[in-house]
């Protein structure tokens, strides 16, 4: 090893940003706020009542000390071959990930991080599918500028290790695929959250009351509230519902703004990556290598579907899948947006002339699939009616009437859902993609690259065997479950589709039936 090597090796190590030690301020501010509030309220502070706040303050001191230790002991570096993170005082941990295994780089900044000018950089590898921490490197936290530098460094360069100044402007010319249109905010309230958020202030009020030590009889409050709602005239009840819905709508719009403010989807032709930037208070930046892209999925929860809207997500190997909450998981390529635009975006992300997700080409499934769904609807309704009758018998109401009322609601709803679920079913092979769609309340269309299919799983329940159906799943290195499913397809149809999708694999195990 030459002297120059030594210099490079020691110089290569970098530290976290010292401001990270202050991030735990969030542990001290709420207790201080509560102390101040109670002091104002009662004129003095009774420390006996504030054990929780004292514990919280001690926690802050402890966390800050441990963060300082973490700052002192953590180093990281990026070499040509790998990314290394070295950390720990007593339990030394050294993680090295080969750079060609890096699949995604996420940069996030929460509110506290943003005030301090910090970002968290998370790197995912192909094995991170099950959010396994061993295969995920988190650098928490560096300055915003450093995070940008890291992201540029970590993703593959078209010309390795030659950052000539003349190249920089050309490499910066990212191609924009989509950006936020403020009119999309109309899709925000088309979410089940609209019914829930309006009730949230109540639970917050209860929380605050509890913290301030105001005794609340929660059971009595609920019973009282129900009695109150039953006793008030119909029009007042309607006003109440409208108020909850308006509050819910405002809440979902705020949530939409928080998640999708300044949303931009870009392609960087130089590094062959896709990048999503978004967020108001917490900013998120998500970068994905295009060669890891295995397809796209279109999500249409039922309310969004009524509004002709849809969401779009990427399917990619090594994509760290997070829960698909209102803020959109980490593979989100679009906020709730017009369906037509989602198709256009899918086409340009996948570099296709036309979106493979378009419904027109999908082939319907056998009628037996509809019978299965109607049978389930019948069973669910019967269960609901039986439960209602049982409850009525216990409560001493009229059993016949309760059962009838529930049946009048449950039967049509479940039948409509069953028919809709059947009409959602569809599959096809389109160009390089296997396309499959299913789901009533949450319709999901998936286009999976045929080249990304690494096996098949065919499952048949006893009832499916009787009615000539099968569930054919393509296994792949992408996605949380590792499979994309064609549900209740005709047995022969499904096998032939699988055989055609990946030629030469399944054919050797398929035989003609005697008839």
């Amino acid at each position: 090893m030459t002297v120059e090597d030594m210099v490079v090796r020691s110089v290569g190590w970098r530290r976290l940003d010292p401001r990270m030690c202050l991030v735990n301020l969030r542990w001290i501010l709420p207790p201080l706020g509560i102390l101040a509030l109670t002091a104002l309220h009662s004129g003095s502070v009774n420390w006996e009542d504030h054990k929780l706040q004292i514990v919280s303050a001690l926690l802050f001191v402890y966390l800050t000390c441990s963060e300082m230790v973490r700052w002192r002991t953590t180093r990281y570096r990026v070499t040509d071959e790998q990314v290394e993170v070295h950390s720990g005082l007593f339990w030394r941990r050294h993680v090295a990930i080969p750079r060609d295994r890096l699949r995604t780089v996420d940069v996030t900044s929460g509110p506290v991080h943003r005030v301090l000018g910090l970002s968290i950089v998370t790197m995912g590898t192909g094995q991170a599918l099950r959010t396994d921490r061993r295969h995920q490197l988190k650098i928490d936290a560096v300055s915003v500028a450093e995070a940008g530098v890291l992201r540029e460094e970590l993703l593959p360069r078209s010309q390795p290790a030659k950052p000539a100044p003349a190249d920089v402007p050309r490499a910066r010319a990212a191609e924009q695929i989509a950006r936020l249109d403020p009119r999309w905010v109309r899709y925000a309230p088309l979410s089940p959250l609209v019914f829930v958020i309006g009730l949230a202030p109540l639970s917050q009020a209860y929380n605050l009351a509890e913290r301030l030590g105001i005794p609340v009889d929660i059971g009595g409050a609920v019973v009282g509230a129900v009695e109150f709602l039953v006793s008030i005239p119909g029009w007042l009840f309607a006003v109440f519902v409208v108020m909850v819905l308006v509050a819910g709508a405002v809440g979902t719009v705020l949530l939409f703004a928080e998640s999708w403010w300044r949303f931009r989807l870009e392609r960087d032709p130089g590094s062959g990556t896709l990048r999503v930037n978004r967020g108001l208070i917490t900013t998120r930046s998500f970068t994905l290598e295009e060669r890891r892209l295995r397809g796209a999925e279109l999500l249409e929860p039922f309310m969004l579907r009524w509004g002709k809207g849809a969401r779009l997500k990427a399917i990619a190997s090594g994509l760290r899948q997070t829960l698909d909450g209102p803020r959109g998981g980490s593979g989100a390529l679009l906020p709730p947006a017009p369906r037509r635009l989602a198709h256009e975006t899918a086409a340009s992300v996948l570099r296709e002339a036309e979106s493979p997700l378009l419904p027109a080409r999908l082939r319907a499934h056998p009628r037996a699939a509809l019978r299965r769904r109607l049978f389930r609807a019948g069973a669910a309704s019967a269960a609901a009616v039986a439960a209602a009758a049982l409850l009525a018998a216990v409560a001493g109401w009229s059993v016949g009437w309760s059962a009838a009322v529930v049946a009048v609601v449950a039967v049509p709803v479940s039948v409509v859902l069953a028919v809709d679920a059947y009409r959602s079913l569809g599959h096809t092979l389109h160009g390089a993609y296997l396309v499959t769609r299913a789901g009533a309340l949450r319709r999901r269309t998936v286009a999976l690259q045929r080249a990304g299919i690494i096996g098949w799983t065919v499952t048949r329940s006893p009832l499916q065997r009787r009615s000539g159906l099968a569930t054919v799943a393509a296994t792949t290195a992408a996605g949380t479950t590792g499979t994309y499913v064609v549900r209740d397809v005709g047995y022969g149809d499904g096998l032939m589709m699988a055989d055609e999708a990946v030629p030469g694999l399944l054919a050797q195990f398929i035989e003609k039936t005697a008839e």
Partner: protein
Amino acid sequence: MTVAQKAGAVRLRPPQNTVHRRAITMWTTRSAVSYGLVALVFLGLSAFVEGAGTVFAVLAFLTALAGACYAIVVPRWRYRVHRWEVTGDAVYTSSGWLWHQYRVAPMSRIQTVDTLRGPFYQLFKLSAVTVTTASAMGPLTIDGLDEEFARDLVDRLNRVTQATPGDAT
């Protein structure tokens, strides 16, 4: 390229090989022991819990009955469904009893091949061979091969997969 032109006229043929017959004995023992343990716990509770003795005794009896039925019927049934096959370019398995599952993994996409031997397997000199791909769905399993035979099979599969280039995603 397709095997038949008319839909509905094709089906998957069962894989060629069964697992070892000792697997039936192993599965029977395993389910008998696990149901037996639960029944024993209930029996113990019936002796020690005041006032609920009869309830737990009945539960113990029902568990033992269900366990006996399961241990007699299911392993034999499972044995008839569970088959496997290794061809030049793929691994193919079928498994289940009520729900039948057929799985295919192309040789070029296999990442690792391992054996798994729990205590019951060791008792009966059996192995489970697991074939892992890059999918999060989990490995293909051939459950209940003779120990020696499984070792040879794993060696053979590992030689083939190591000779195949690519990162199997």
